[in-house]
């Protein structure tokens, strides 16, 4: 066998086709067991950290001296540091780890392939998390770049890119060696996500950090990246999770499934053009703004398609949705996707953007997309995935209830606070007769509401973390015990011989 052929054979992820389907599926689940635990647990840790940092930032908007005179002398706790640090912890720590776990698992299952080489995934996952740690730490000590979503220093990018490649290659390999039969829509979305992200990330780093473009072209490249990182990485991954979990748990196929292809193609066509929607009335030529506004509006097409798919399917099985822990989160995410995308399209219009731009409203829009849609969908998928991967049930249903209600209510309060507060902030800001200080003071009540919501969200995540650690911890302990038993058995056997 030539070296190349042996390499190919060593990564060929197809399970033994002689096995019955049931055995093959549990082989696939088992092949991803510990990588998934690594990604989910580290992701949940980043999620907690990011939320805490965001919460501290929110408190500082109400009480700038927080957390006291002594700590104010600590530069790392200043508002301009914890905001980007929290954002990066959420995006690259939680978001990417969650997509790695959920995306790889769904891809492997739908393709009927397993992930063969475990060692590489552990190393890559470890390197990814180390890179994020390095990046977030750098931001906190003040050696980041001032480009939103790309704040990590340029040196971190190669580390992240390399570990990403080692992880994402498994998704591509799974698709390459997939079993016969029709390709499901989740596979399209996941393949797209795993292929788009590296391009988008490298082009963003290139034009912003390594060989910066001149003037506002740089800002354009930065927003092109940020918009695509969300729209072509987190969004398709979450849509794939919804498309997978919803019919699966309900036991009924997606309604109007034939439209989903249209949704995917439209998403792929329009999302990349929306980058400049963050620069409306900004220092870029007006045609660039117009094209991005038009693309944001055209993005309503895939949104309507997914809305039809998701909501008609969920509606038909509404009672089962409410009974399923997975689907509560999944359907919450699906609804949020519809609403957040509509908000996104409307706020891209010039006449609305003039009020919402630069205000807390857009912060709320970000939270709506990243938290109420993406994160909730990921929670749902994780609730579905972990018992199957670990062959063990979640330890506590009460904690799942607590998680759902606390995060659901919490994010709802945050959104209400930021949307209402942001809108009145924008209206006041555009009225030059309102002194700036007065409009800042007027935002206080809504900022307090956002803090309360944030606390609830954090509480819910603590419940999730507790449940997760108990589940993974017991599973790990059992695995360790069985390994020990095997080892001692072998040792005994040898002694006997």
């Amino acid at each position: 066998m030539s070296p190349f052929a042996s390499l190919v054979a060593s990564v060929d992820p197809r399970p033994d086709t002689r096995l019955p389907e049931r055995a093959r599926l549990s082989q696939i689940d088992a092949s991803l067991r510990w990588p998934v635990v690594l990604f989910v647990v580290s992701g949940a840790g980043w999620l907690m950290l990011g939320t805490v940092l965001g919460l501290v930032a929110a408190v500082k908007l109400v009480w700038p001296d927080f957390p006291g005179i002594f700590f104010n002398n600590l530069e790392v706790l200043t508002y301009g540091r914890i905001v980007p640090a929290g954002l990066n912890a959420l995006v690259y720590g939680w978001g990417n780890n969650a997509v790695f776990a959920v995306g790889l698992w769904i891809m492997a299952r739908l393709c009927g392939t397993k992930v063969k080489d475990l060692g590489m995934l552990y190393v890559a996952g470890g390197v990814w998390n180390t890179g994020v740690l390095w990046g977030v730490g750098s931001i906190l000590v003040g050696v980041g770049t001032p480009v939103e979503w790309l704040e990590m220093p340029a040196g971190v990018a190669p580390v992240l890119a390399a570990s990403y490649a080692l992880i994402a290659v498994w998704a591509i390999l799974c698709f390459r060696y997939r079993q016969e039969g029709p390709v499901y829509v989740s596979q399209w979305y996941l393949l797209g996500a795993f292929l788009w992200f590296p391009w988008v990330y490298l082009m963003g780093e290139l034009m912003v950090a390594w060989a910066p473009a001149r003037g506002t072209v740089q800002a354009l490249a930065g927003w092109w990246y940020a918009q695509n990182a969300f729209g072509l990485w987190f969004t398709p991954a979450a849509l794939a999770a919804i498309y997978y979990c919803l019919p699966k748990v309900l036991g009924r196929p997606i309604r109007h499934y034939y439209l989903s292809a249209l949704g995917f193609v439209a998403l792929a066509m329009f999302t990349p053009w929306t980058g400049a929607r963050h620069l409306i009335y900004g220092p870029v030529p007006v045609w660039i703004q117009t094209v991005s506004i038009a693309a944001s509006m055209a993005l309503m097409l895939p949104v309507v398609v997914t809305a039809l798919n998701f909501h008609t399917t969920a509606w038909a099985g509404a009672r089962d949705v409410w009974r399923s822990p997975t689907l509560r989160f999944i359907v919450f995410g699906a609804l949020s996707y519809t609403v957040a995308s509509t908000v996104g399209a409307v706020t891209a219009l010039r006449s609305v953007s003039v009020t919402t731009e630069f205000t807390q409203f857009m912060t709320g829009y970000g939270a709506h997309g990243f938290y109420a849609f993406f994160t909730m969908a990921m929670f749902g998928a994780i609730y579905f995935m972990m018992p199957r991967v670990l062959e063990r049930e979640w330890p506590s249903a009460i904690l799942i209830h607590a998680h759902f209600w606390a995060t659901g209510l919490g994010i709802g309060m945050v959104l209400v606070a930021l949307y209402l507060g942001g809108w009145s902030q924008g209206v006041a800001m555009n009225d030059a007769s309102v002194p700036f200080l007065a409009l800042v003071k007027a935002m206080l009540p809504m900022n307090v509401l956002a803090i309360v919501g944030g606390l609830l969200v954090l509480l819910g995540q603590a419940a999730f973390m507790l449940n997760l650690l108990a589940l993974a911890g017991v599973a790990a302990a059992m695995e360790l015990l069985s390994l020990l038993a095997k080892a001692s058995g072998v040792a005994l056997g040898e002694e006997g011989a």
Partner: protein
Amino acid sequence: MDWDLHRLLVIAPGTLLLCSGAYALYWAVCAGRSRDFTRGERAVFTEEEPEGLVLEDFSRTTSIGANETSSANALGRTAD
């Protein structure tokens, strides 16, 4: 006046594209092509998690759908 060349340049090809797209869709649906898109909709279901089976139920037990077996194949299953 307002409908100058500048705008016609955008609208004429746009309309053309749109009409051809609409016609293509019409033809595809009439020719039964849309059925091909539905072939994938059951790809999510497997032997152990088949269509027609609701997999999770909060209300049954304190723990979700706890079953007597520890095998992954039975997890979360509530239907018969």
